[in-house]
C-alpha cells in the first residue's frame, strides 16, 4: 500500500522548471525531498545567484511569480475569513507551497463551452481535485465531466511539444513558418480562417478582432459538433438577435422541455441543474416539469410528466401547445396537426397550466430545426416569458456554433480557396457530419495549423500542431453569460512544451508581451471600467482572481431586443407539411452522453467508466430501443444491429431502454474515436457520420453478432421493496409540516457512547437529478482506480458511491428515480461483527471505518452488507500493466490524493465519509483555535453536487443542516427494518402531479 500518491512521481510544481523534451523529470520520494530536492534554489529571497533555465521556462515561471506577488495583499484580506475561498493563498516568507498543505485557486472550467467557475485544490504544486466555486452567481458544484478534466491534465497522450509536418520542432521554427505563410496569404488576399469551437473568452475574442483588423482576409468560423444554430437563427428571425437566451429555470413554475436534456448535457447543465433544484422545494415553490422526448434522458428521468415522442413529432408537439396557448392568447389560426403522441386531455391540462403560469413558465427545445424553434419562440412570447424566464437582453455565449458558415467553409476548402486554416478546439474529421468531405478539403488548404493537445483525427492531418495548454496550465477568462465574467489562472507550470492558443495568436500578430500581460491589460481597459466597486485596478484584479468571478453592469450599448415578430405561420405550416415517414422505418435520435459529451473527453478513463445515469452502461455506446420493439424484432441486450440511413450505416449493440419511444432509436455521440489515446481508442461506435441526412427513415438489421455491455446495474425494478420512497406534492402538503420523524427503531443493546461528533449524511432524493458528478468527485478524492470494461462486466467496478436508478410504472413510459448509494455507516453494522480481524469497526464519531492495512480480504463483510456498497480489490489496480489506465503511469498517478492510501490487492474498501477531510478540518480548527462549524466539512460528493442534494454534517449538533434533514418528515433510512441504524438518511422523492 502506498500512502503518498505522490511517491515515485515526478513533481512539477508551479515554481519549478518545466520538463522540456528530452529532459529527465525530477523524481522525489517524499514531500520533504520535493521541497529541497525538486525545487531550484534560485527563487529564494535574496535571490541566490545562477539558475537561468531556458527562455520559455522563465516566462511561465515569472507569470506565476507575478500572480503570486500581485495577490499578496488580497490574500491577506480574504485569507482570514475562509481560507478555502482564497483565489491565492497566504504566503509565508519564501515559499508559497508548504509540502503537505493544499491551496485552493479559483479558475474557469475548460471542459466545455459552459465555462463553469471552479475552485481547484493544489497540493505540492499539483492540481489534484476540482470543486465548484460557490462564489459564482451562475454556477455551484460541477458536472461529472468537469470533475474529470483534472485527469486529462495528466494524460500521457498529450503532445510534448509542437509538431511541424509530424516532426517535433521548437516554437521559433513554427512561429517563423506561420508568419511567412500569413504574410503570403495576406499579400495575395487569400482567406485565412480560424475554425474554432465556441469561444467564451472575451479576451481571446478581442485578439481575434485584432486579427480581423490586421488581416482583412481573416475570418472566424465557429463550429460546434452539437450546435444550437437553429435556435440562434430562430431568435434572429423572432427578436432580431442571433443569440442563445439565458434561461432562468429558477423563475419558472411550469417547465416544458422538448428533446432538451438541460439537466444532463444541454447548453449549461450545471447552472440549469442548480436553478431547477431551487425551483423544486417541497417546502417552498415546486415547479411542474413536463418533458417530451424520444430517448430517456437525465432530464426526462426527473420530469413530473414524461411523454415519449418520436423525433419527427417534436414539431407537432410544439404546434399542439401553440394551438392551445393560441386560443388563450386569442390567436385562432394555428393549423391543425397530428396529436397521436399524447391524448389531448393531457395536452389541454399542460397548456392550461402553462397559461396559468404565464410569465413564469418556460419552454425549451433542443431540436435543431428552425420551424420548431420558431414555434417555441412564439409560445414563450405569447406566454409572456420573454424577459422573465427567457433572457435575451443578457444572452448566453455558451454556444455560438454556426452550421451554415461551417458548411460554406468546407465548400470553400474543397474549392481550394482557403490558404491558411487554424483549428482550435474542433475535431471535424471526427465529428463533422461529412468527415471525408472535410478531410478532402483540408488537403487542399495551403497551411493548416491545429491547436489540439494531441494527435487526433483532425490534427494528425494538419501541417502543424501547436499543442494548447490544458486549461489548468494557462491563463484565461470567460463570459458564459453576458456581463458575468470569470478568470482562469494556471495551477501548475505546463507539463509539456505547450503554448496557449491565445499566446500563439498574439505571437503571430507580433504582440510579444505575452498572454498574461495582454489579459491584464484587456481587463484593465474593458472590464475594470464597467464596475465601480473597486477604485483601483490592482485590487479589482486581485479580488476577481480570488473569487474567480465578477459580475458587472451590462454594457450601455447592448443591442436591443425587439418584441416577437417571427413568422410563426410559415414555421407552423412547414411543420404540418413535413414529409411523412414509412411505418416500417425507425427514427434515429442522437444525444450527447453525460460523460463524454461530444467526444472530446474520450481518452479520460474516469469518464469512460462512469455509468450512464439512465442505462448504467459504461465503456461504449449502444442503440437504445424500446422493449416492445425489441420483442417485435426478437432483439435482446447486446445483439449487434446495423443501422442504415440513405447515406451511411453503423453497427452497434442494442440496449433495451424502458420509456424509449417505440419508433425511435437513441444513440450516444462522442464514441468510436479513432485517434485519441489508448483509453478511448475504438470504444463504442461513431454516430456523427449518420447525422448527415434525414435520420427519419432508418432501417435496422440484426448482424447475428452479440457483445456484452458493461453495465454496473443489471436489475432496474425495485421488486416492490421499500428502497426509494415516493410521495406527491399534494400528500406532502397535506401532512402537517411540523410533523418530525426520525426516532430510531428500538434496539436490544444499550446505546453505544457517542464521541464528540456523530457524522452523517442527508440525501434529498427530490433534489438528486442523477447527474453522477458525485461519482467522479469521489473517484478523484479517494484515489479510486479504473478497472476497465472487462472488470465492469464482471461486476467489479470500484466506485465508492453509485447512483442506483429504478423504474416505476409501465415499461413503455416508466417514471424513474435516482438514489446515490454509498456506505450507510450503520450504527449497528452487519459488516463489522463478521470481520475476523477488526479491520472494520465503528469510530467514536459514528464512521464505519475500514482499515486497509489490517484487512486480510475474506470478503465476509461485503457478503453481509445489505447495501452491497463494499468494494474488493480483486487485483492490483496500481502499477499493473493489465490495468493500463492513469494509475499505471507516473504521470497519471500525479492526480492521486496524497492524503488517501492507494489500496493494494486483496483488501476491501468503501466510502469512509471523506474522513481525510474531517481530519483536515479538525486540524484547521485546531490551528485557528476555533470549534468546528456546520459546513466546515464538505464531502467530495456533497461539494460536487450541483443541486445540493447531499448534505454532510454532525448529527449531534441539533442545528446542523444534516440534523434537520434527519428530523424532516420526508426522512427515511434504507432497510431500516434490519436494525442497521444507518447514519445516512434519505428524503422522500416528491413529484408534482398537482398541476396536471
Amino acid at each position, binding site marked *: 500500500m502506498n500512502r503518498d500518491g505522490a511517491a515515485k512521481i515526478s513533481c512539477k510544481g508551479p515554481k519549478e522548471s518545466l520538463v522540456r523534451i528530452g529532459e529527465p523529470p525530477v523524481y522525489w520520494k517524499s514531500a520533504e525531498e520535493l521541497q*529541497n530536492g525538486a525545487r531550484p534554489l534560485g527563487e529564494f529571497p535574496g535571490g541566490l545567484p545562477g539558475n537561468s533555465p531556458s527562455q520559455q521556462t522563465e516566462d511561465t515561471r515569472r507569470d506565476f511569480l507575478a500572480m503570486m506577488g500581485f495577490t499578496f495583499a488580497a490574500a491577506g484580506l480574504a485569507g482570514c475569513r475562509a481560507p478555502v475561498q482564497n483565489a491565492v493563498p497566504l504566503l509565508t516568507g519564501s515559499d508559497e507551497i508548504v509540502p503537505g498543505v493544499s491551496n485552493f485557486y479559483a479558475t474557469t472550467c475548460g471542459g466545455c463551452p459552459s465555462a463553469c467557475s471552479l475552485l481547484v485544490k493544489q497540493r505540492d504544486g499539483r492540481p489534484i481535485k476540482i470543486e465548484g466555486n460557490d462564489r459564482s452567481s451562475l454556477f455551484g458544484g460541477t458536472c461529472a465531466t468537469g470533475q474529470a478534466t483534472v485527469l486529462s491534465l495528466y494524460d500521457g497522450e498529450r503532445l510534448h511539444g509542437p509538431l511541424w509536418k509530424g516532426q517535433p520542432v521548437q516554437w521559433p521554427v513554427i512561429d517563423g513558418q506561420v508568419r511567412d505563410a500569413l504574410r503570403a496569404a495576406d499579400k495575395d488576399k487569400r482567406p485565412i480562417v480560424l475554425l474554432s469551437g465556441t469561444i467564451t473568452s472575451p479576451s481571446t475574442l478581442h485578439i481575434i478582432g485584432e486579427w480581423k483588423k490586421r488581416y482583412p482576409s481573416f475570418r472566424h468560423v465557429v463550429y460546434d459538433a452539437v450546435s444550437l444554430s437553429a435556435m440562434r437563427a430562430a431568435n434572429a428571425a423572432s427578436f432580431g438577435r442571433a443569440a442563445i437566451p439565458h434561461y432562468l429555470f429558477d423563475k419558472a413554475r411550469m417547465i416544458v422541455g422538448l428533446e432538451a436534456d438541460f439537466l444532463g448535457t444541454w447548453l449549461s447543465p450545471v447552472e440549469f441543474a442548480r436553478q431547477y433544484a431551487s425551483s423544486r422545494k417541497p417546502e417552498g415553490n415546486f415547479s411542474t416539469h413536463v418533458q417530451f422526448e424520444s430517448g430517456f434522458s437525465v432530464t426526462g428521468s426527473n420530469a413530473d410528466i414524461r411523454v415519449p415522442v418520436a423525433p419527427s413529432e417534436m414539431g407537432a408537439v410544439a404546434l399542439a401547445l401553440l394551438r392551445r396557448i393560441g386560443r388563450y392568447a386569442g390567436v385562432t389560426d394555428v393549423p391543425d396537426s397530428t396529436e397521436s403522441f399524447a391524448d389531448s386531455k393531457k395536452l389541454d391540462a399542460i397548456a392550461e397550466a402553462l397559461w396559468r403560469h404565464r410569465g413564469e413558465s418556460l419552454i425549451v427545445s433542443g431540436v435543431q430545426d428552425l420551424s420548431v424553434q420558431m414555434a417555441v419562440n412564439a409560445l414563450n412570447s405569447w406566454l409572456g416569458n420573454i424577459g422573465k424566464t427567457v433572457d435575451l437582453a443578457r444572452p448566453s455565449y455558451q454556444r455560438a456554433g454556426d452550421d451554415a458558415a461551417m458548411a460554406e467553409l468546407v465548400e470553400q476548402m474543397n474549392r481550394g480557396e482557403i490558404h491558411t486554416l487554424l483549428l482550435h478546439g474542433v475535431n471535424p474529421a471526427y465529428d463533422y457530419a461529412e468527415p471525408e468531405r472535410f478531410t478532402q478539403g483540408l488537403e487542399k488548404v495551403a497551411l493548416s495549423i491545429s491547436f489540439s493537445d494531441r494527435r487526433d483525427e483532425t490534427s494528425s492531418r494538419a501541417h502543424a500542431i501547436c499543442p494548447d495548454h490544458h486549461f489548468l496550465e494557462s491563463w484565461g477568462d470567460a463570459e458564459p453569460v453576458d456581463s458575468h465574467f470569470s478568470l482562469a489562472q494556471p495551477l501548475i507550470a505546463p507539463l509539456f512544451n505547450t503554448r496557449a492558443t491565445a499566446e500563439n495568436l498574439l505571437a503571430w500578430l507580433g504582440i510579444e508581451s505575452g498572454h498574461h500581460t495582454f489579459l491584464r491589460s484587456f481587463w484593465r481597459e474593458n472590464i475594470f471600467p464597467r464596475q465601480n466597486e473597486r477604485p483601483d485596478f490592482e485590487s479589482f484584479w486581485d479580488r476577481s482572481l480570488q473569487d474567480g468571478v465578477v459580475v458587472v453592469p451590462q454594457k450601455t450599448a447592448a443591442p436591443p431586443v425587439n418584441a416577437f415578430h417571427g413568422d410563426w405561420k410559415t414555421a407552423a405550416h412547414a411543420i404540418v407539411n413535413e414529409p411523412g415517414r414509412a411505418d416500417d422505418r425507425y427514427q434515429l435520435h442522437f444525444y450527447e452522453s453525460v460523460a463524454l459529451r461530444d467526444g472530446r473527453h474520450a481518452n479520460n478513463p474516469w469518464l469512460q467508466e462512469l455509468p450512464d445515469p439512465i442505462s448504467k452502461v459504461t465503456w461504449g455506446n449502444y442503440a437504445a430501443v424500446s422493449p416492445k420493439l425489441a420483442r417485435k424484432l426478437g432483439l435482446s441486450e447486446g445483439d449487434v444491429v446495423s443501422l442504415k440511413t440513405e447515406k451511411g450505416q453503423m453497427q452497434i449493440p442494442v440496449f433495451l431502454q424502458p420509456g424509449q419511444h417505440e419508433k425511435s432509436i437513441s444513440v450516444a455521440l462522442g464514441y468510436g474515436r479513432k485517434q485519441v489515446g489508448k483509453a478511448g481508442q475504438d470504444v463504442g461506435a461513431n454516430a456523427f457520420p449518420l447525422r448527415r441526412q434525414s435520420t427519419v427513415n432508418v432501417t435496422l438489421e440484426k448482424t447475428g453478432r452479440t457483445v456484452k455491455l458493461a453495465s454496473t446495474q443489471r436489475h432496474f425494478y425495485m421488486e416492490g421493496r421499500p428502497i426509494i420512497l415516493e410521495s406527491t406534492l399534494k400528500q406532502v402538503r397535506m401532512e402537517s409540516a411540523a410533523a418530525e420523524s426520525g426516532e430510531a427503531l428500538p434496539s436490544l443493546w444499550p446505546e453505544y457512547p457517542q464521541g464528540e461528533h456523530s457524522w452523517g449524511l442527508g440525501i434529498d432524493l427530490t433534489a438528486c437529478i442523477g447527474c453522477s458528478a458525485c461519482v467522479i468527485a469521489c473517484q478523484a478524492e479517494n484515489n479510486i482506480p479504473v478497472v476497465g470494461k472487462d472488470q465492469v462486466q464482471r461486476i467489479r467496478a470500484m466506485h465508492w458511491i453509485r447512483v442506483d436508478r429504478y423504474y416505476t410504472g409501465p415499461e413503455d413510459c416508466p417514471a424513474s428515480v435516482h438514489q446515490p448509494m454509498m456506505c450507510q455507516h450503520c450504527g449497528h453494522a452487519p459488516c463489522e461483527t463478521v470481520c475476523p480481524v477488526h479491520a472494520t469497526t465503528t469510530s*467514536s464519531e459514528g464512521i464505519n471505518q475500514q482499515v*486497509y492495512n489490517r484487512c486480510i480480504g475474506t470478503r465476509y463483510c461485503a457478503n453481509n452488507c445489505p447495501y452491497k456498497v463494499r468494494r474488493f480489490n480483486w487485483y492490483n489496480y496500481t502499477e499493473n500493466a493489465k490495468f493500463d489506465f492513469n494509475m499505471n503511469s507516473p504521470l497519471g498517478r500525479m492526480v492521486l490524493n496524497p492524503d488517501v492510501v492507494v489500496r493494494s490487492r486483496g483488501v476491501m474498501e468503501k466510502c469512509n465519509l471523506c474522513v481525510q477531510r474531517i481530519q483536515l478540518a479538525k486540524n484547521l480548527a485546531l490551528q485557528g483555535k476555533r470549534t468546528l462549524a456546520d459546513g466546515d466539512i464538505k464531502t467530495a460528493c456533497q461539494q460536487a453536487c450541483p443541486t445540493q442534494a447531499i448534505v454532510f454534517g454532525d448529527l449531534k449538533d441539533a442545528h446542523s443542516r444534516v440534523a434537520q434533514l434527519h428530523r424532516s418528515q420526508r426522512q427515511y433510512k434504507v432497510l431500516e427494518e434490519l436494525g442497521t441504524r444507518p447514519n445516512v438518511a434519505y428524503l422522500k422523492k416528491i413529484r408534482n402531479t398537482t398541476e396536471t
Partner: protein
Amino acid sequence: MDLAGGGLKALLMGRRFLVVAVLALGLGGLLAGWELSRVGVHQGYAPAQPIAFPHKVHAGDNKIPCLYCHYAARTSRHAGIPPASVCMNCHTLLEKQTVEIEKLKEAVQEQRPIKWIKVHNLPDFVYFNHSQHVLSGVACQRCHGAVEQMDRVQQMSPLTMGWCLECHREHAHIATADFQRVMQDMTHRPVPVAGLDCTSCHY
C-alpha cells in the same frame, strides 16, 4: 533385534532425547517470535548524511528552536527539511568555515539539491500529521528523542503502532470506562483529543 542405522540409534536415545528436543523447540520458538516482532522496526537507525549536519551545534549549543528550520511542522503534516536558503540565512553572514559548510555552499552555487536521507520513516499506510501534534503541545523530543544532543540524528523511538498507542491512550478521552461522563463535561472547545479510532491514523 538390532535396528537400522547408527544415526537412528542416536535419535532413539530415549527419554533424554525427548526432553532435549522439547526444550530446544520451545526456545527456538521464542527466539523466532522475538525476531519476527522486530521486523520493520528500525529503532536506532542513524544514516550518514551527505552533509554531516550536527543538530547538537545548532539546536543544542546555539539553541535554535526546532521550528525555526522545520517551520512546516506548524502547518503541515510534514515537518519539512529546510531549504538550503534557510541555512544560508545564517551561513552567508557567518565567517566560520568547515568542510561541511563548504559542501553546503557548493551545493547552493551549483543549484544542486542536497539529497538528505530520511531517518524517521513511518509505514505508507499510516497518516501522521506533524502540525496536529505540535499544536497539541507534544514536544518534538517525545518522539524524536533529544535531537539537540545528537551529532548525527538517530531514530530513538520504535515507531510501532503499539508505541503510538501508549501515548494516545494516556491522552485519550475516548473509549475509557468513564467515557460517558467525560463526554458530558467535554466542552465544545477544541480539546486536543488523542484519537483511538482507527481512522485517526488510517485512511
